[in-house]
């Protein structure tokens, strides 16, 4: 079944002090036997955007346990490993997402995985102790695979490439 739907909404960042990213969700056009309901799509996008806030907080405070709500599997292990490494080096990092351009591209027939692409603009700032040693506006095309957990969608694959 083919489904066309346009979603365009803004989300307010829940983390105090965080900038509110602009969010655009492109119309999706999926082929496959399982229709993607609007509510499902909105939940997945909402949970994905909240995962960015968790990512930001976890790398800022060097607390990998903050990832547990939103990431799972390989993605969670990889991010936690990176946090452990930067902690050992006396680093912490901020990833402030500023803009998202999201497209849902795949919803599996069994409903157990959903893939989206997101061209993200974010600022990465790296601190050695209290001193900023790098700040860079970055743009990346993220490939995300989400799987449903008990109460929300979790990111199982979170992989960036040059847009």
């Amino acid at each position: 079944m083919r489904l066309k739907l346009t979603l365009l909404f803004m989300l307010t960042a829940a983390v105090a002090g965080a900038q509110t990213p602009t969010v655009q969700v492109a119309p999706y056009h999926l082929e496959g036997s399982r229709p993607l309901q609007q509510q499902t799509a909105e939940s997945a996008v909402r949970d994905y955007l909240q995962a960015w806030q968790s990512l930001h907080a976890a790398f800022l405070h060097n607390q990998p346990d903050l990832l547990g709500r939103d990431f799972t599997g390989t993605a969670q292990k990889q991010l936690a490993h990176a946090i452990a490494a930067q902690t050992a080096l006396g680093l912490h990092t901020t990833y402030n997402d500023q803009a998202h351009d999201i497209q849902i591209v795949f919803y599996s027939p069994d409903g157990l995985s959903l893939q989206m692409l997101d061209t993200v603009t974010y600022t990465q700032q790296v601190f050695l102790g209290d001193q900023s040693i790098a700040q860079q506006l970055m743009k990346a095309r993220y490939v995300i695979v989400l799987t449903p957990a008990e109460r929300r969608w979790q990111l199982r694959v979170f992989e960036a490439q040059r847009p």
Partner: protein
Amino acid sequence: MRIGWIAGIASLAFWAAGAAGQTLQVPKSVVAGAAISIPSTGSGAAEIYIVGPAQVLHQKVQLGETITIPQGALYAAGRYLAILSGQSVRGHWAFDVTPSPDLEKISFLARPSRLPVGQANGVSGTVYLFDAYGNLILNPVPVTFQYAAPGGPAQERTLTTRDGVASVEMNSSSRQGNANFVAHAGGVTSTRVVEQVPGDPCSLKMTAQPAGNQILLKTDPVRDCSGNAVPDGTIVTFTETQGDRQTTVDVPLKQGIAQVTVPAEPGARISVASGVVLGNEIRWNR
């Protein structure tokens, strides 16, 4: 001359975002797990940090020499900053780590693991392709799906992944038994076993014969619409109606048939059903 001009542009690209006077020639893109050589200028000791959400590395370096990140050290695909930090130098450069093109693992999800026979597009298979470091391989890769089940020719379809994923739906065949559902790509094979079970009864037919002052009701062997025996334990319901009085008996199939004795009531109507399938009706006139 043209090559030299292109090389010059490439060098400028390397230098973008770097510190004035101090330069790392960081490649714009490297393959996951590959050794990386980063020529540097200047002199003195410094440190390089490679920082991204997917991985963080650190190495002490000597400026003026080529910095080498050993094979296997930087393996997580993603966008990174290479940060040069020393007493008098500082700069940073963005670059990418891309997945290795060599497929190592297929994550193959086949659902459901058990389904009735004769279901069009009843079983689905979804694959995600990963390299040796667990990076999703984003370049298109052909994947062949095969579904081989009893009672029908093997189904085969070849699809190409998009952003690391491909998905297919297959029909279950007409005979019960185990089916092999195989995904094959780049020399890597992953197999799942799907159990095909009989469907619902296709029809029900019972006979009745006297047994003393009772009636022995017995079904013919119960089969699905493909001729497979419906599993023992499936409930068959016999109903005897006499005037306003109705007696219902649930009987599990044993060796493919269901049988029961009910009181012989002249003029009684007796019917049989299983699930949504209704069988024949008998009027007992003896």
